[in-house]
């Protein structure tokens, strides 16, 4: 019996007049990697920013319907948005280390919550960097600027920084789109390991990546969820012709 962690019910999102997500219904199960594939502008990234309400920052953004996370509708008035965002850590397409040291990047989130005990933080930093597969590479230069790391290292730093929040969910928005194959492989390996402790939603424009790491895969097109199923089924016998065409590279 699978445990439903996130339930999306009749959910739509609008930018001004334009509808960017159309009446989505979808479940995310606990401790799975849900891959989301689809061509550009299909609403994949918008969907992620709706889950942690980062989309609120865009002027003219409006939603209808519900998203239940652990049974709680996150669009209820009175939800503490900062706490929600800590619970759903997000990694962006371009690595965005903050302009401070590696160490400070990692403790940024925990410090906001008032965890100021240094000993505690040192352990946390090591633990998170270890999990993100970056510890060995940076352990001797934690105090140097995070901006000096390579692109792949920066992205793993961003992942480690998200882990430092002790979230339950990790949202990844095309995390490897700017990375070389080796860095991509390292991140994918990390995700497979993280799955046992976290629920992961991976938006990717690389269908092969979804095939490699996702347990289930959802196909988005023009703001609609075309279908969602076990990754093996999506890639071998999809129910919808459009999914098949996209996977075979006939458009997108």
């Amino acid at each position: 019996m699978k445990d439903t962690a996130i339930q999306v019910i009749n959910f739509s999102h609008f930018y001004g007049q334009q509808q960017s997500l159309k009446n989505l219904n979808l479940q995310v199960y606990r401790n799975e990697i849900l891959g989301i594939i689809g061509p550009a502008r299909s609403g994949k990234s918008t969907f992620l920013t709706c889950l942690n309400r980062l989309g609120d920052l865009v002027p003219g953004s409006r939603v209808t319907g519900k998203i239940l996370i652990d049974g709680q509708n996150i669009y209820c008035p009175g939800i503490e948005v900062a706490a929600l965002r800590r619970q759903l850590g997000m990694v962006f397409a371009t690595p965005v280390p903050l302009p401070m040291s590696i160490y400070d990047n990692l403790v940024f989130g925990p410090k906001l919550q008032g965890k100021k005990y240094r000993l505690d933080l040192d352990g946390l930093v090591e633990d998170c960097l270890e999990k993100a597969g970056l510890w060995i590479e940076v352990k001797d230069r934690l105090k140097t600027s995070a901006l000096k790391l390579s692109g792949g290292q920066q992205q793993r730093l961003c992942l480690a920084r998200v882990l430092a929040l002790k979230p339950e969910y990790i949202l990844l928005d095309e995390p490897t789109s700017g990375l070389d194959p080796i860095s991509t492989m390292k991140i994918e390996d990390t995700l497979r390991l993280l799955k046992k402790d976290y629920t992961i939603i991976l938006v990717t424009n690389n269908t092969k990546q979804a095939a490699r790491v996702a347990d289930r895969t959802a196909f988005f097109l023009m703001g609609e969820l075309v279908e969602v199923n076990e990754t093996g089924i999506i890639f071998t016998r999809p129910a919808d012709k459009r999914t098949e065409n996209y996977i075979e590279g006939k458009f997108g």
Partner: protein
Amino acid sequence: MAGGNMIARHEGSDRLIKISLLVVAFSAVSVLVIITIFIFEQGLPIMMKYGLKNFLLGQNWFPSEKSFGLLPMIVGSLLVTLGALVIGVPLGLASAIFLTEFSNRRVSRFLKPVIELLAGIPSVVYGFLGLMFLVPFIREKFGGSGLSVLAASIILGIMILPTIISISIDSIRAVPDSYREGSIALGATRWQTVRMVVLPAARSGLVAGIILGMGRAIGETMAVIMVAGNAADIPGSLLAPVRTLTSNIALEMAYASGEHREALFATGVVLFVIIMILNFLANLAARKQYRKK
């Protein structure tokens, strides 16, 4: 062959332009050099004659009795500049933060040009307003004549606002949005993001704005003369009158001659050196920021 000639000709005109731009750039710098040489040439001899110490630390300015102590004016300039920064920097930074991070686009699009318009008001108008409203207000509320350090600081504090605000706005806007997004996605509030990420990232620009504001405050003459009282004594309180280095030159240059005139140039030398030192210190502060090395 014809093609080759054409390339040669283009390179020739490029060089011509490069050389003429170089000349123009150097003539701008040479003006600075000429001013420096002129001031020092006119002011240094008398400083040497009466002793540097007497000039910088002497408390009595009686040009007719050959007593040229500049200390009251040095203290005066530093005091009103400091006062202006105490008033102008918090107000200016707060306005810039509000206009960039918290107000909606329409409000900031309206307010920013209005604030920049403040910079276009002639300083004599600021002085006049100060004399008409601020000085009587201080006289009634706090006592004294009203012509005071406090009045000069407030007027200067207002005068440096447009400089500080518009440069701060530009440097805050130059901080990439990805930093804000990244910080907010980590659970920071807007204010935490501003305080912990945006302001540190914009630091060098903010300091530059404050330096320019400070330069304007220490160099301002007209508005200060009108509200400061101009007594050549070290002020004993914020309500006492004060004379700045610039006021000293402007007030007396019209009738000064001989050594008195040279002493006013010496005042200019002191002012020049102080501004250089302040600039240097401020630049040092700006350079300490966290950056990609």
